Every structure is written in C-alpha cells, then in structure tokens.
C-alpha cells in the first residue's frame, strides 16, 4: 500500500496542472506567466499543463491586485479546486497590491482573501522565477501530504525586510529576478 502512496506523492510533484487567474493586473505578470508555457521554457517537461478549469488544477497562479469586486471570484476559484492545492501569488501586485496598494478599491495582497503558499516577487517576475515558484509550491504540498513539517519551506513576505534578511527559503534566493 505504501508503494502506491509513495507513487502518488511523487506524482504530485511531477504533474502540476496550473490554472491562471488574473485579478486585474497591468498584463505584465500575465505575459510572463504565459511565456512560461511557450516552447522556449517548455514547462511540459516538468509535467506542467495550463488548464482552464479550476476543477482540474493543482496550482493556482494569481497575478494582479485583488480588489473588492474580484475577491469573490478569486475565492470561488480557490474553493473549486480539489485538495491538495497550492496558491502562488505572482508579482508585486499579487504580493501586496504593489503600486496600486493605496487605491480605494484595492484589498491588498492575494493572502488577504485566500491562503498563499508561495510568493514570487518582481514587477514582473522572470519566467524562471515563476517556474521556481510553482515547483516550490508543489514541494510544499507534497510535504504537507506526507505529514511533514512545512515550516522549512515557509517563504517570507519580501517586503518584510527584517525577515527577508534572515535568509529564508525564498524564490528570490533561487532565481534572480529583475524589475
């Protein structure tokens, strides 16, 4: 039995199907996210498939600022995904609201609405950083499924200078990002 369980756990990391939701980004992050799916980066090597359907997805990629209108949509999409699932917030806007943080209609980061597993900073982040973010998110939920302590995977909010300085595992450390 445990062989089957192990295989399923291994498969989780090897076959992440992603669904991409744009919470009204400037389109910068979306273009980078979709660039990941082109033959140049060819993420299908890692079994990543872009599906249009939250019911089939394992990883939710969120770009853009969450506002009072679309937070319900975001929540619905999240709830439609069967467990285990991971959420990756992409870009400064997804992390905190970015340059739109102080707008009257902006709620803030994605984590104000749904739990976020991985933060990929950048404005916009490089496609490599997004791939790293997805891989990190998957490792995290596979570890969760094995019942391991996931604190070693904990990522820090990049704008939290004090915590970021402690050198925690962060996408920022594994892939250089510009912007």
């Amino acid at each position, binding site marked *: 039995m445990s062989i089957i369980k192990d*295989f399923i756990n291994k*498969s989780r990391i*090897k*076959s992440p*199907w992603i669904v991409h939701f744009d919470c009204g980004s400037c389109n910068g992050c979306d273009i980078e996210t979709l660039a990941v799916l082109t033959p140049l980066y060819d993420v299908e090597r890692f079994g990543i498939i872009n*599906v*249009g359907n939250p019911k089939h997805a394992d990883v939710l990629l969120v770009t853009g600022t969450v506002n009072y209108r679309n937070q319900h949509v975001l929540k619905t999409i999240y709830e439609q995904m069967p*467990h*285990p699932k991971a959420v990756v917030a992409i870009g400064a806007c997804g992390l905190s609201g970015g340059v739109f943080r102080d707008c009257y209609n902006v709620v803030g980061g994605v984590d104000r609405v749904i739990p976020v597993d991985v933060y990929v900073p950048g404005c916009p982040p490089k496609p490599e950083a997004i791939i790293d973010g997805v891989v990190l998110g998957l490792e995290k939920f596979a570890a969760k499924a094995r019942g391991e302590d996931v604190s070693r995977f904990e990522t820090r909010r990049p704008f939290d200078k004090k915590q970021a300085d402690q050198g925690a595992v962060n996408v920022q450390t594994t892939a250089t990002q510009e912007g």
Partner: protein
Amino acid sequence: MLAQYIMLVFVGLLIAPVAGGLIAGLDRRVTARVQSRFGPPLLQPFYDVAKLLGKESMIVNSWQVFCAYMYLLGAVLSVVLLFLQSDLLLLFFVQAIGALFLVFGAMSAPSPYSQVGAQRELMQILAYEPLLILVFVGIYLATGSFQISEILTHEQPLLFKLPLLFIVLGYALTIKLRKSPFDFSTSHHAHQELVKGVTTEFSGPYLAIIEVAHWYETVLVLGLVALFWSTSLWGMLALLLGTYFLEILIDNTMARLTWRWMLSYVWIVGLVLSVLNLSWLYAS
C-alpha cells in the same frame, strides 16, 4: 482452453492500460518534438493519473460518478472482448454504450461547458459510428465472418482488400481519439473550459477514471487497426506505428474546425470511400 481464455482476459485487463498509457506518453513526447520542444517524460500520463487519484473527490452529483465508472466498464469490456477474439458487432455495441455514458455524465451537470461538450461528443459519436459499422461490414464481406477469431485465420492481409475502408477507419480513429481536427468535445491540449468540454465537471479520481478509460479506448482502436494486417506480427507492428505516427502528425498540423464541417465532410468522404470499396469487393 480455459487457461488460455483467462490469460487473454488478464492481458486485456492489465496490459492494455499500461500500453495505452505508454502510447499516450509517447504521443506527448513526439508532439513536443514536432513543436521543437523537449516534452514530458514517457511516464507522464501515469504520474498524471496517480496524482488525480490522490486528489479530493469533488462531485456534482452521484449519477456523474456512476457514469464515469460505466464509461470505464464499457471501454474495459470492449478491450477484453477484443482480446477474447469475440464478435466485432458485440464489441461495437459495448463500446458505443460506454461512450454514451460519458455523454450522460457530462449532461448530468448543469454547467454550460459540460453541456456544450456533451452535445459535441454526441456529434462525434454520430460521425464515427456509421463509419465503424461500414468498416465492419467490409471486413465481413472480405472474410465472411464478424468473429475476430475467424478473421485472424484469413490468410491474406485485409489491407489489400479494404484499402479505402482502412482510410475510413483512420477517420473514425481520429475522431475517437479526439485529435485535431476533430477535437471538439475535449482535447488534451485544451486551455479553456469550452474546449475541455465533456470532462469539465469531472475532477480528481473521476477524471483519472476517464483518462484510464481513454487508454483502453486507444488500445481498442489500435487493435482494430492491427486487424488489417493480422497475418504477420511485423506487418501488424509496422501498420500500428505508421498509423499512429500519421495520427500525431495530423494532430499537430491541423486546426480545430467546426462540428458541422466534421459531420458533412466525414460522412461524405467516408460514405464515398466505403461504397467504392464495398462495391469493388462485391464485384470481385
């Protein structure tokens, strides 16, 4: 004799999905190469299915679950019938019922995407079922039997007598495997809900079941292709490889067209080719 039957059922039940999964993996790799990408590992379809099996089961209604299992049952039974060298017509009806249950499952959910997918799947069934029957009729005229065990005793490859019907079977194969330009109801490369169609409302383990059933179906249609060169193992293998490679090539070079085009085109071409081949068979 009984031991042999049990062996055959065993092969049908267990080897067929493994072969189907490997074919799906190979398909994805070759497709990636055609698009000058590297592509996923060969075992990717197995990882996908294992992952789906490990997911939470979210269902819309229990009828949907029943339909997923019935679809699998239909596919498995028809493959077992193929390996038992049973009657072609029986096999045809069993797989048709399995295919219909997928449509019922998609219809049972009120989601517009799965409704559209179900309608399109019906159109696809409507397009390939008459062709399949015509192919079987051709096989009957050439060998004098619908029984696979008797067809296998035919000393000449069927391809020589039924070349046009083989092309017709190719059309049915492409529709059945839901490859471009006939991927209306669902497609592996679907990036939108509408294109994911029939399978939109299936998730987790039930999607895995549908995937496994699709592997069985792949083996079934390839088994039918193999019948056309049943005299030698190498001929069979060459025919299978050639047909499937052509299938992948067509999948990658064709765009998705409309179902109206599919119905009129496939019926006209299929009927003309079948009638030509059948009348030639009748005359000779």
